């Protein structure tokens, strides 16, 4: 019955997330991380707008990948991003949040306890 109470509950607004890329130059370490960041940023700037806002998850998969790579490194981050892409957004046990009127599946990097 957990899914039913979750479905009936009022959907909160999504928490605004900080920039996944460190703002301080000294924290921007690792060639792989920087390359991954540039590739993902390129995707967001070029392909994302052309493709349209189709992602049903919050943060979007490209932003999730940026957080994952920044926090866990390139290899784990890439695996996490790939797993996120095959995740099924209709599974009822995910929590939901809203940006404006649109409802998203809330799945931040912090919720993914891969290493327990």
């Amino acid at each position, binding site marked *: 019955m*957990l899914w039913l109470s979750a479905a009936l509950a009022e959907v909160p607004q999504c928490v605004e997330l900080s920039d996944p890329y460190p703002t301080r130059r000294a924290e921007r370490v690792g060639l792989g991380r920087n390359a991954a960041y540039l590739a993902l940023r390129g995707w967001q700037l070029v392909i994302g707008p052309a493709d349209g806002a189709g992602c049903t998850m919050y943060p979007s998969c490209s932003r999730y990948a940026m957080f994952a790579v920044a926090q866990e490194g390139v290899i784990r981050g890439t695996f996490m991003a790939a*797993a996120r892409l*095959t995740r099924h957004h209709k599974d009822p046990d995910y929590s939901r949040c809203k940006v404006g009127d649109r409802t998203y599946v809330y799945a931040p990097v912090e919720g993914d306890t891969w290493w327990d």
Partner: protein
Amino acid sequence: MVCVAWAGEVDGRLVDMGLVEEAYAGALVDVASAPVSERYAAELYAGGILWEAERWDLASMHFRQVPEARLAYGYSLYREGQYGAAMLALEGLDEGRELSGFAALRLEDQAGAISHFEAAGATEVLSIVEAWKPLPHRRPGVAAALSAVLPGAGQAYVGRWGEASSALLVNTLLIGSTTTLIRREEYFAGVSVGLLALSFYGGNIMSARWGAHRHNRLAKEERLEALGEYEPRYRIEDGEVVR
């Protein structure tokens, strides 16, 4: 004493106005200036303000040093999610037996919980918990191993059929494409698609492992949700911890 009581009244009004941080700052001054004989009341009051704001972690720090506040300390730890520490704090305390039982349940120690509920005389909860069957536990290692052998199998093992079919489809396509390209001696394209395939293969193993954790956590939460109405809730009123 008059001074502390007056300061407490001011803090209480601040809490009523929603100014919890200001009230807590005032309560901290009270704690620092209170004589030893009034320390329990001052610490309890400061912790009570933090309970209002659901800052259980900070509240437990106030109660930790005061032997009389063991129930408040244990309850703060319990609400903070430190169930083992809560059980230790409440050990031997009659009023805390039922809470210890709930902490044991959260740690999946059904037998321990039953003994606590028996000692507390909580017959209704006891009858529910005694009737529980073992949780349908899924082992994260098994889920990961299954997905390593056949992509999607681990997700199916934990009942996530949508993810299982996605993982199977994506991995089959990518691994198939990689082998086809390598056989055709198109090495650059083969290695590129192979790296992509490797990412999804690794992600599929992680996803299965994570799915098992999520399955176990949800099963436990769903079961505990049914006991929500029996779970002890405490508040601090007139310098006393009351249920």
